[in-house]
């Protein structure tokens, strides 16, 4: 074999490889220019409005409806027995804290009556473990029954639900939420950290910050 022929064969493959590389570069260049990334945000910075997403604007009523609290924790939805707390406080007027079957309550009355005379804050620490033992887990059949009960209660005594959702109950509430929205019932919900108490009360800040929106 001639040395020149061997050299030509080697350089031929080199040429082919170099040309292929060049072709690949050119093809990549053209593909980057012509093929657009099909996302709205890349060339249209304005967000597209989805008209199907609901936005419920809270209303402030001059005479708002009454509230009914539901504790959502440990995969259970339990109504907070507010009447029991009031009865317990009524029975022992001197004791500002005590226990009900659902947990422990603490009444913090306003020492200085600057504004109205019924200003107060009540803290309720629910016994989640006890609730989990006494009540069955909340499932889909329970959802329909609950929504029905809430709708009837609103029609009868104008009470609307407020859901206090603990982290252990967030999954359960996430399943319940679309049903509540579809039913058209007004409701509120608040997320609390694990172990945080339920705080309710009546104080002047509610009327400055408009916290009581329904």
């Amino acid at each position, binding site marked *: 074999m001639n040395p020149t022929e061997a050299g030509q064969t080697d350089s031929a493959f080199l040429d082919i490889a170099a040309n292929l590389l060049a072709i690949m570069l050119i093809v990549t260049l053209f593909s980057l220019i012509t093929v657009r990334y099909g996302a709205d945000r890349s060339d249209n910075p304005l967000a597209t409005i989805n008209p199907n997403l609901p936005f419920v604007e809270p209303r402030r009523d001059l005479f708002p*409806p009454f509230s009914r609290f539901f504790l959502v924790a440990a995969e259970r939805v339990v109504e907070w027995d507010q009447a029991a707390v009031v009865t317990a406080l009524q029975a022992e007027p001197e004791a500002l804290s005590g226990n009900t079957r659902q947990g422990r309550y603490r009444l913090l009355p306003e020492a200085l009556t600057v504004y109205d005379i019924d200003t107060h804050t009540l803290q309720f620490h629910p016994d989640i473990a006890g609730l989990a033992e006494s009540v069955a887990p909340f499932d889909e059949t329970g959802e329909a029954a609950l929504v029905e009960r809430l709708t009837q209660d609103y029609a009868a005594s104008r009470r609307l639900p407020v859901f206090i959702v603990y982290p252990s109950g967030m999954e359960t509430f996430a399943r319940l939420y679309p049903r509540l929205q579809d039913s058209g019932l007004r409701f509120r919900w608040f997320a609390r950290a694990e172990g945080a108490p339920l705080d309710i009360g009546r104080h002047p800040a509610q009327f400055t910050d408009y916290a009581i929106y329904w």
Partner: protein
Amino acid sequence: MRFTGDQRGNNPGVPPPDKLFMVVTGLLIALVWLTLWSITHPRSHQSDCALDEECQSVQEAIARWEQLWQQIATDENNAETASSVPDKSLRAAGDTVFMRYRHLWVDVDRQTRHAFRLSALSNQLPQKIELLQPLLQAHDAQIRFRAWLEIARLQLRARDLKEAETAAREALGVADIDPKLTVDAHFILAYTALEQRQFDVAEQALEQAVSLDSGFWDARQVQMWLLTRQLDNPRQTLSDCLDRTRLLIENLRIMPALGQNRVQFRDFADLFRTGAASGNAATHLLAGLGDLWAGDRDKARDQFLKVKQSRGRLPVRCAALIAAKADELLNSVGSRETP
């Protein structure tokens, strides 16, 4: 042959023509005289009043109207007094007067306070009312009043209008109460009247509530809605028309001073969005004044120009007075500057 005799004897059934013509001539003369008399003595609606009381109320209404504009002129000269809050302790967004103003309770015993707190804490209507029952026989009049007021509010929250009205009247029946504290009972009566579409009753109750407590935001807001609705009536009296416009302007002046929260104005705008836009002279004057006081002179000018052109339904003389005021304001605003 020429006939020279008369025909009188020939037709006995027909009355003699001479007498008939005399009667007709007499009637025509009387008619002409009556016409001439009525032309020379036209009945002027300007100076005649049907009743003396009506004349007096019209003059009083006009006097109050002029007084309002003098007050506005004085306030514009002293800018610092124009938007001062009436009471330093006022928190305009309270649900009752006791939550709006400070220090209205002095030396209340622990038991009473506990009863009120427990009532506020409960969420069942029968239990709430039961907790308030012993307070209705309290010795202190203010406690009795507060208990009745709370019951009225609870019944209204439960949409029981008749019970709420009864409880509010009981609250007003408590003696030895400072009139300023009774405004919430008047407001509840106005609200129940509104729900039953008794607009005149509601208007009177609201006027009482607002005159007793100048910082009552909720009552002023509802009053503005009601007055714009009541103004759209061509059969109202002149004094009513002027008073309603005057009250609307007074409310417009005081609202920015009372508002402590942007959200209050949003509630305000929502309320007006639900009502009908009547487009009569008074609403254009009001919108023009609002724009003027907000600093937008061009929009104000447009609204004042619309006052005369509006085809709304106000009594004629009231519309004339409003148009005169709009002309004055147009002159004070000045002509549009051409670039």
